[in-house]
């Protein structure tokens, strides 16, 4: 039922995959002040994974030698850490802070919520990756690889 691999798609994905990942990171980091954020970024990265899967029947996670569930775990770890770190410093859960760094080309302000955004990014991406790996494969050999 799945169409055979298409050469055009293959070449297109080669060009698009990394670009899309960069765009997703762009979304992630600009999210604080402009449209974007961890959720949208994660979805864009997920879309890149989907494209790769459609072109080559391969999910990008395999090249990373990780299971898609790793993304989920890392994401939740990041989220909970972000939530709990302020508590240690006698703040409230999930309280945000910012650090401004005067770089040569202008001031850069980093907000602690960025870590939480990264957590959202990882979990959304992880969800897409899980769907691809677990629903996209057919044979038992795929299970053996996971």
């Amino acid at each position: 039922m799945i169409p055979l691999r298409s050469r055009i798609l293959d070449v297109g994905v080669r060009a698009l995959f990394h670009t899309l990942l960069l765009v997703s990171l762009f979304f992630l980091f600009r999210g604080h002040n402009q449209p974007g954020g961890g959720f949208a970024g994660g979805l864009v990265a997920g879309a890149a994974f989907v494209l790769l899967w459609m072109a080559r029947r391969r999910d990008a996670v395999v090249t990373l030698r990780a299971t898609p569930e790793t993304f989920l775990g890392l994401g939740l770890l990041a989220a909970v850490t972000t939530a709990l770190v302020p508590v240690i410093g006698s703040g409230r859960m999930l309280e945000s802070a910012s650090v401004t760094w005067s770089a040569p080309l202008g001031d850069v302000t980093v907000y602690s919520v960025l870590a939480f955004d990264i957590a959202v990014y990882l979990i959304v991406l992880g969800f897409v990756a899980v769907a691809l790996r677990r629903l996209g494969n057919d044979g038992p050999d795929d299970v053996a690889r996971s």
Partner: protein
Amino acid sequence: MGGLALLGGLVLLAQSASTTRLSEILADPPPTTGVVIAALLLVLLGAFTKSAQVPFHFWLPAAMVAPTPVSGYLHSATMVKAGVYLVARFAPAFAAVGPWRPLVLTVGLATMLLGAWRALFADDLKQLLALSTVSQLGFLMVLFGAGSPELAEAGCLMLLAHAVGKAALFMVVGVIDHQAHTRDLRNLSGLGRRMPVLAVTATVLAFSVAGVGPVVGFLGKEHAFDGLLESHFAGATAVLVGVVAGSVLTFAYSMRFLWGAFATKRSSESGHDAVGPAVPRATPLFVAPAIVLGVASVAFGVAPSLVTGLMNEASLAIQPDAVVGALSLIPHLGTAFVLSILVITAGSLLFLSRRAMEPWDRLAHRLPAASHSYELTIRALNRVADTVTGIVQHGSLPLYVTVVLFTFLALPGVVLLSETSLPTDLQLADSPMQAAVGVIVIGAALATALSRRRFAAVLALGATGYGIAVLWVLQGAPDLAITQLLVETVTVVVFVLVLRQLPDSFRAPRRGQLTRVLIAGLVGVMMTAFVLVTTGARVAPPVSSSYAELAVEEAGGKNVVNVILVDLRAFDTLGEITVLLVAALGITSLVVAARLPRSGAANAEAGRNAGESP
């Protein structure tokens, strides 16, 4: 069951007192109504089951299979005292309300007598101690449950005595069990000569439980007798008689414990495979914990000033008007002392004549056992649950959906029809562009419903989503548009992945088509009306109006949507990503388990994970 009753009772109580703080409820108890009485009965039910009161006492001896430290912990100190603590806290405020006092006193006394009676005839040393615990819990229930200012300190003392004494006795039995490989007192003989230190320790502890000699248990028992003599509530004298009878039994089984564990028995009294003199001695470190507690038992008894402060404070915390004072080991020669002597005399006689009592015990065993009726109840409950599950979880997906949609129609629908009115200032469209997109969305939705092929339906569904994303753009909400677009893409992909496994086209349902069309149409109308009414029904200013300023001031971000997600409402997001994660894990486990060779473990795991995913 007890926990459920307790929860229900506490909820009812908190509702009637309109606070959930226990201290506030107790300081200002709600007026006596039917609801409050029902709540108290439920709370008591919870307390009785937790603290193994008659008729829920059977679980405690049955929990004896645990290793000794666990038993000691479970039976002497923490868990079973939870119910006693509950009653102790509630009694001062509620003892006079409705059936509280008669009920607690009756149950407590019955537990004390039954537990002690059964302990008198138990052959397993650990079982004997467990039944003794049941009995002591009944005693504590009586002391605290009466809610009498004179009894609070006696209760605290007995609590301490029991915690110290029973934990150590369990350890003594643990040592015996470990060294002799049996806990059956018919098979033990001559251990006292073999392990004299252990025997002396056990003697001190058993005397503390029995309330005799210079030990803390004696203080408690004297206080209890004194308190009951001075209490004014109705039936105090009857309770005193019951407590004295229970104490007689307690003394008798304590003696039997010591005799059974350590005495050198005549061959006629011990079994044919008696062990004793050949038992290896225990290492000092093994016996040490019991000795420490035994010494504590004596120290608290000989020098009560060690615990006076603690006991007075605890009593006053339970009951502000509790009668407290300096504790003294030397008994004043009054009725309580006479009663103590009576207990010792009658207990000794009972111990010596226990053989003559055995026929009575066999008679008692013929009565219907509480554990039996418990098993019957559980079995009936399981049957009912099976039947209900069979009816509710029939496994037909269309029927599930119908029920959900029908509920949606019935509940908010009725409210909508009866209570609210549609807003009047409606516009068909803000711009021609909007109208055009709207038409496309409607067309795509119709195509979804009419399509005979699964893939086409999914793609058309995706088209409605993209159309709505365009509407967001027109409204000037790029964030929403981006998210909608991406979510729609991923949804379509996931849909396609799943649908690969299914046949290409729908099988036309033979019947019920009209009903489905009707329900679907009604839900559509309902949803439209719902959205129209809710947007017009706002009465309070939206909470979001301040978010735009907050976002810049507190979080330092100009993208309000994102700041809401990761900062202002970050808790919500944390919950949502957790749900997402669990759903993903649910996919993994379902798919992986389904592909594994069919085995019970894999199926069970799949079932468990399916239950967890939302």
